[in-house]
């Protein structure tokens, strides 16, 4: 497979780095509102599962195009020698101790090494003659070239640009790297294919791969959500109550611990999703998770040595039966096991009575039993939907975010009701039932089912 290489060139501050970031899914490409941020050419590849599909070279902007064009014109004998003159220009600049045109040297070198050209302009600013020197230089390279109109602050001058650019470039497209969804990105990639016939097959394959990869990522992101929800729903925290008077304090402590754990799991889920969608540098701002549901607490009993009431009664019954068995053996079996039966019943009844109020069981004032306060697992359906909704909102946001977008990601909350309307009634009921038992754990088939519903909720709501 040939790996197409494109040099992204243009005037400073027209969004070249943003376009590179979006189309190669790299959020560490340096983007700034200050012009001249990029100082050297650097290749960024689109890599999917270890395979490189194309390479975009981020370049510094033209800084002295008129001067360079004048140099070229002075050194060029005729139109047929333009490419050679350009190559001579590069060799000349490289040989000088301090290049007079360092930026043009950086951006033209990859082009003369075979890269295609993507010329980027700002569609919100008017066309002017200062760009003609740049476009003329690019014409001299003889390389396949296309133009992208980036409407940074609006599309006021897009048609003006289209008219001017079509005289220099065979393909002209409008592309906003900040908001371009998958379809728009693949449309631009299709335009790449039109530039150079040998690249067509590989770029068409790349488009198919990207579309499939996008679906896979959403599916895997949904599976991360499912695993995180299972952790959150099934989590429990316990604390022994030595004295009932401190129950309120213990309850607050448990609630805090529970809330912290849920937040940790949610944060871990968000981090995983960020890695999955390659938004490693993304900053996000989400409302902290608050636990305000009733019936989260449950009471249980604790006994010394980690036993519970059932085990104590079972042990006592066994011990009583064993003692009765000794008596049965003593009478040679004539009691017909009545001793074992009676012993077991008596011991069982006695331990049942003794453990009726465990908090009263003390040895020299030291409690040997009492109540255990437990928080979780999550059985409240409303809160379950809250957690599901938060997770889906986050996944949906990160899936749509482009890699040129460096704003702090703020979560847009959609009502789960709106999302659920995308499912049929039957599916809504099945989803509800599945969420109701998530705290007990889901088998593989159920996990896949929940994952598929999450994907549906996102895709259909977006549509």
């Amino acid at each position, binding site marked *: 497979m040939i790996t197409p290489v494109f040099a992204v060139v243009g005037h400073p*501050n027209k969004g070249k780095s943003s376009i590179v970031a979006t189309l190669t899914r790299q959020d560490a490409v340096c983007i700034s509102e200050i012009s001249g941020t990029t100082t050297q050419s650097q290749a960024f590849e689109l890599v999917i599962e270890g395979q490189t599909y194309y390479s975009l070279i981020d370049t510094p902007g033209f800084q002295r195009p008129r001067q360079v064009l004048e140099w070229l014109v002075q050194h060029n004998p005729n139109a047929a020698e333009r490419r050679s003159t350009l190559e001579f220009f590069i060799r000349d600049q490289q040989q000088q101790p301090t290049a007079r045109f360092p930026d043009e040297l950086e951006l033209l070198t990859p082009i003369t090494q075979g890269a295609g050209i993507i010329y980027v302009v700002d569609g919100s*600013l*008017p066309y002017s003659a200062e760009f003609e020197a740049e476009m003329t230089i690019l014409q001299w390279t003889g390389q396949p070239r296309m133009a992208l109109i980036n409407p940074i602050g609006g599309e006021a001058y897009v048609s003006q640009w289209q008219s001017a650019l079509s005289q220099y470039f065979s393909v002209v497209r409008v592309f906003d790297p900040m908001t371009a969804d998958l379809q728009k990105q693949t449309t631009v990639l299709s335009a790449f294919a039109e530039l150079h016939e040998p690249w067509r097959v590989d770029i068409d394959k790349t488009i198919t791969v990207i579309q499939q990869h996008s679906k896979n990522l959403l599916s895997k992101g949904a599976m991360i959500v499912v695993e995180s929800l299972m952790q959150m729903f099934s989590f429990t925290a316990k604390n022994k109550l030595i004295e009932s008077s401190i129950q309120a304090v213990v309850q607050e402590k448990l609630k805090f611990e529970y809330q912290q754990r849920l937040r940790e799991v949610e944060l871990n889920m968000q981090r995983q999703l960020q890695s999955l969608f390659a938004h490693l540098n993304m900053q996000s701002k989400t409302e902290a998770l608050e636990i305000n549901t009733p019936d989260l607490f449950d009471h249980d009993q604790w006994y010394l040595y980690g036993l519970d009431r059932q085990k104590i009664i079972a042990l006592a019954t066994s011990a009583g039966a064993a003692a009765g068995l000794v008596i049965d053996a003593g009478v040679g079996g004539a009691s017909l096991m009545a001793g074992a039966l009676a012993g077991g019943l008596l011991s069982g009844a006695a331990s049942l009575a003794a453990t009726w109020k465990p908090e009263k069981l003390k040895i020299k004032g030291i409690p040997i039993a009492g109540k255990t306060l437990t928080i979780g697992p999550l059985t409240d359906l409303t809160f379950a939907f809250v957690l599901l909704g938060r997770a889906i909102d986050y996944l949906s946001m990160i899936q749509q975010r482009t890699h040129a977008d460096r704003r702090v990601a703020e979560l847009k909350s959609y009502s789960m009701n709106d999302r659920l309307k995308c499912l049929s009634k039957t599916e809504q009921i099945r989803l509800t039932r599945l969420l109701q038992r998530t705290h007990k754990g889901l088998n593989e088939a159920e996990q896949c089912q929940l994952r598929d519903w999450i994907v549906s909720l996102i895709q259909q709501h977006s549509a």
Partner: protein
Amino acid sequence: MVESAHKDAIRFFFAHGRRLAIFRWLEFRLCLQNPDTKSIRYSDDKKQQTLRQYLLAWEQKSLSDQPVLTGFSLLLLFMALLGAGSMASALNYTQTRPINIWIPLIIFAFGPMLMTLFSAFFSLRTSSPHALKHHPWLQLFIKRFRLNRYTAFQPLMLRWLVWQIQSLSLVFLIGALVAFFALATFQDYVFGWSSTLIKDDATMAQVMAVVTWPWHWWVTVPDINTIQLSRFMMNAQPGVFDDDGWWQTLVLSVVFYGMVPRLLLMLWLQWRYSTALKRNILLAGDIDQFMSIQVHRASQNAITDSLPSERIETIPLKALAGSLIGWHFQDSSLTFVRHLGVASWQEDEAWLKSGDAQSLLNKTLVADGMTTPTGELADSIALLNGDLSLAIVFTELSEVRQAIQIKSWQYFAQQHQLNLKVVNE
């Protein structure tokens, strides 16, 4: 093409065998879930590498040995010895009397077959979310071999455990068979049968016909004559025995009823475990997360200076005074000494170096705010010696866009130590 990368991942994790594959995979997942180790780059090479190369680099730096496998190997050895010991006991407990064939058959053939059925039933429950509750001894196993950190991956772990447990039973039977052959080679054992309920030899012959059916084509099976002659009763003196065929019956029963079902169950559980693990590798997003981190690239030598925080002076158009030099300025409302940037550079350079330009006082370079400051402007400024200030004029541009443009001009003015003003029309 997308699938082939994950197949490479599967091949990598299974490279050291199915038994180790799960630990390699779960360690990988735990590494990615740990915030401290998640973002580690496993290769310093700036060139993009394949998924396999990155995984190999991770393996070298992060993967540790699994003590559970050493413990498990010792357990296997113990089971083999237990099997051998059990067979030796079964063969020698009667001393000089015949060995009742039922006893070794039950211990080493029918009993294990029943256990295999139970095992198969409980193995099916591993897909249940409460699986661990059905296997209390597995909970003990997990605790003993410190597999608690894999609790989050319980379903997968259980499939591995249930598969591995089968090998314990198989090794027990292999140990028993090895012991049988070792002892039978050097000692004479006489097998017979005895029963309180089966009075009729013909009934026993029918029972044996059913039991020996799988191999009756190619091995001598106890016929009615052997059955008659090998029956012994309690408190009766042992007579002349013809136990031809009994030892083959015992050995083949162990194989067909003890080992073969267990082996089949083991193979089925191995397939189930492998399939589940491969599916987990394919469906989990960990490989993609890992690759995102490895191929993450930052811009080199990019300018990361912060903007100056001084307020920019805003002046009215009328306030522009002194020698005004235009830069890419199309508006004719101002009177300029010279328009730069619109003709050729040679003409601009010639003028900038001329006496006219050098003699100008109170120079103000007036630039169209919608343009971007470039190296050519910097060269022009360098040629304009003396007192120079910079003014930018915006026309037909939204406030938001103006604010973005001003940042570039502000930075440029700071770099070239110019006094910047924004002209308010």
